């Protein structure tokens, strides 16, 4: 940490000269000067800095590396906002989403989660990496805490910071490689004071550490920590800007929509633009869609909006038909993008899921029920597939459900090449 009377120096960030004090952490020095360098594992008073997440990767004096492990020195040249660095940093955030099992709408930390926040700041609308869906434990054994391994990003904060009064560690990393996980010492955990336990929950950047009975009082949307304003000036969701594949120019455009393995929540959101819908009707017409109950395609459409992923054979067939009948295919909502809530089953074998649901459930008498199987019924897939694993998908609109404005802004952009910017507050995963 910078001493009080340390030397005044000048560094440059993306060409901008900044006065600061020698030895200060680079992320901090930038922040004090209104420049945002994304960071996740960085925690101001942990020294040496953890440097585990790599979300803060910048180019510093010609070398690529994390900003959070750098102390500023006179004349330091830092690049933050190059195209390549921006893309690289989002890749890291995407990797974290793919590695863990993040079902934001069901998460206690949603809205206050640093991982989510980084995704928003970087405009991550989907992960370029396949989700790994590794089965992970939710550990209810500790006396006071619940450890949700699905959400841990292995930042190491808890390992460094959560200590008992006599200095014993409560957390440690265990295993290595892709098996690495955070482990908790039940004995030491039980010795923590209430405040220490709450502190553990609050330093965890994600929803991986929860304290029983003290889960954050759910705040209404809009009031949570990361809901409304970006730390960056002029936040845009980038993908729409450089949309290469815009629909053919013409008069009235046609849209088709469908809900596959979704909850119709995305369709409800679609209707949420209220009177705006009347304007839309002026310029577009709907073909096959649950909104107008047209069951079959009657012509080739400009855009297909798909809600939900594929959990059964019928979903797959419908999706393939959409691909053929729509020039541009858009996955809207988390379920369509990577599986979403229905994909919670992906970490468990199908057999176990079905048996639990139909045979061993609390309300089922032994021997009385069977798992439904009938020629008339669609067949259930081994896991829930994101649409882009089955057909090519052109655009992705995140959210569970996506904000109505976000959806229409994207559609208008695609159909009429209209410039648009999605506001930070409209870009959400829950």
């Amino acid at each position, binding site marked *: 940490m910078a001493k009080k009377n340390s030397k005044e120096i000048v560094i440059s960030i993306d060409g901008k000269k900044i006065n600061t004090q020698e030895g200060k952490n680079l992320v901090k020095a930038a922040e004090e000067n209104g420049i945002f360098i994304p960071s996740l594992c960085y925690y101001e008073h942990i020294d040496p800095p953890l440097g585990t997440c*790599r979300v803060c990767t910048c180019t510093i004096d010609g070398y690529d590396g994390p900003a959070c492990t750098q102390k500023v020195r006179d004349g330091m040249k830092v690049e933050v906002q190059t195209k390549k660095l921006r893309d690289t940093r989002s890749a890291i955030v995407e990797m974290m989403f793919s590695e863990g099992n993040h079902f934001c709408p069901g998460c206690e930390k949603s809205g206050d989660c640093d991982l989510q926040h980084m995704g928003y700041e970087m405009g991550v609308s989907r992960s370029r990496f396949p989700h790994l869906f590794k089965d992970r434990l939710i550990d209810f054994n500790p006396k006071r805490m619940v450890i949700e391994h699905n959400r841990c990003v292995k930042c190491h904060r808890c390992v460094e910071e959560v200590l008992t009064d006599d200095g014993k560690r409560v957390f440690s990393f265990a295993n290595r490689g892709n098996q690495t996980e955070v482990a908790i010492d039940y004995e030491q955990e039980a010795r923590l004071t209430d405040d220490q336990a709450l502190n553990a929950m609050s330093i965890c950047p994600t929803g991986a550490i929860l304290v029983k009975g003290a889960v954050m009082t759910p705040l209404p949307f809009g009031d949570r920590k990361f809901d409304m304003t970006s730390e960056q000036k002029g936040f845009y969701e980038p993908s729409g800007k450089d949309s290469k594949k815009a629909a053919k120019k013409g008069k009235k455009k046609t849209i088709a929509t469908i809900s596959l393995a979704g909850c119709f929540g995305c369709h409800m959101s679609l209707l949420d633009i209220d009177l705006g819908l009347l304007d839309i009707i002026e310029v577009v017409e709907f073909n096959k869609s649950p909104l107008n109950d047209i069951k079959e395609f009657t012509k080739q459409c400009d855009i297909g909006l798909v809600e939900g992923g594929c959990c059964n054979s019928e979903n797959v067939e419908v999706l393939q038909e959409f691909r053929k009948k729509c020039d541009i295919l858009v996955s809207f909502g988390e379920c369509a993008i990577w599986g979403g809530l229905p994909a919670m089953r992906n970490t468990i074998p199908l057999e176990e899921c079905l048996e639990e649901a139909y045979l061993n459930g609390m309300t089922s008498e032994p021997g009385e029920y069977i798992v439904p199987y009938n020629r008339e019924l669609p067949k259930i897939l081994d896991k829930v597939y994101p649409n882009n694993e089955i057909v090519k998908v052109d655009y992705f609109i995140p959210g569970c459900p996506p904000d109505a404005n976000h959806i229409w802004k994207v559609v208008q952009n695609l159909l009429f090449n209209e410039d648009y910017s999605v506001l930070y507050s409209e870009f959400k995963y829950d």
Partner: protein
Amino acid sequence: MAKRKSGKFRDRVELLDCLWAYQSKHGYIKDNHVKQCSEDFGISEVEIEGVISFYHFFMRQPGGKFTIYLNNSIVSEFKGFERIKQAFERETGASFGSVDPGRQFGLFETACIGLSDYEPAALINFHPFINLTTLKVKEIVSQLKKGKRPADICDDIPNNIRLQPPKEGAIFFRDYKPGSIVPLLSQMKPEAVIEEVKRSMLRGMGGALFPTGLKWASCAAEGEKKKYIVCNADEGEPGTFKDRVLMTSMPALLLEGMIIAGYAVGSDEGVIYLRAEYFWMKKQLEKTIKQFYKMGLLGTDITGIKGFNFDLRIQMGAGAYVCGEETALLNSMEGKRGEPRTKQFFPTEKGFLDKPTVVNNVETFCAAARVVELGSDHFLSIGTASSPGTKLLSVSGDCHKPGIYEVAWGTKVSRVLKEAEAENPNFVQVSGPSGSCISAKEFKRSIEKDDLPCGGSFMIFNDKRDILTIMKNYTNFFKEESCGFCTPCRAGNFIIQRKLEKIGKGLAYPSDYDDIREWGEVMKMTSRCGLGKAATNSLNQALEKFPKYFDGLVDHHKEGLNKEFDLESAVQEYEKFKS
């Protein structure tokens, strides 16, 4: 860290030794041992468990009376790994990854064990068994069942030195009288030693090629009283075994190099960090250390130089490739998980226990001893202007003469291939999976700093070897050996592995190769240490150098319907419920 009430707790530095002691005595580390460690060292049990689970030779469950580790490196894979694996399973009744019901035999895979010139090879209770065949496996297992001890029936490991330069051109493999070099120090000031090493242009032989003289000078310049000399004998890069041969053929030369380093930088304590795979050579090293004490080459006032004291000990590792990375190695020596540190300080500033530390490779120390013996002029007369001296290559794979080759820097790949009698070589992996992949077109390139830097591994593959198989083996290695500390390496290697599986199934498109390239670049840019940064090197080079081969593996007619989605197989699980 626990606040230590003076002397109440054991020193954390002893933790790995302590765990080894429990494991050797009981075959595995039991719950009460963890508890005991926790009390003795004053750290929580979870932290002890964290250390144990980091190292793959530590076991929390019985590993059998005979614990067998079969090497699964790519050289082994091509020399019959699968066959030998099955033979062990047949003969012992255990299956890999577990112990037989009678708890006699435990079978496990492990990464390269430094015996690539004798593959397939295995360690049984850490004793080496080489050139395995099904018949040999049968014999070994039956002997063990009859009550023979692995120590009695294991193989002697010949040094296998295949190529020595003509007399004056040699640096390592030439006449040597143990203990003859350190006495020369009485004629040299420490600064003069450093000057000589600088002048020789000696560079680190562990792979990074950092100038050794510079490293020593910066450590010497540190004001601290306590400093350490650490020998990196972790030799984990698959295909490397030159440190093994140096340590078995001239252990004294290594010790002299370390003592010289101690003299040069002002350190009085050295540690050899020896990988657990080399347990079998520990005795000989210890014997040499003892002799050195007797000869007055270790201890106090060495060779009569007043105040020149130096002690040396061996620290055993416990199975983790990443511990070859110098800062991970230091953490491991401190009894911690072998996670690399942030690069805020050089080890020469803050190393072992935060004291200035020189970490050098085995070969580097040996070469440094020769610099003092032969003089830097001798060095400069060999090799090229920018890379003077010689280099030890560990040659393995598809050739008739695997073994150690001492070659002048600047030697061409083709020359090595010829000497090794390689048959139809199609590609050479220089410097191991983290190094460079060289196609037949490039065999004219030379091994030197400015062309093909090399840490020692030289694996030859002939034209029948499937490149994807090789790449899958590498990726699996990195996935297993990543320390898991940073996101891009922990998750990235896993993700790349899945991608390669997809390609292997014939389900990939050309765009999948673009993904690999881009994702590899992300890992390279953002990983915390060399492991993650280098993990996709070979794969990306292979994509570039064997375009035809990779082109043949993908589907070019994509119609927007992903071929990889196979509805029939996706509903197979459900079909079980058909009544």
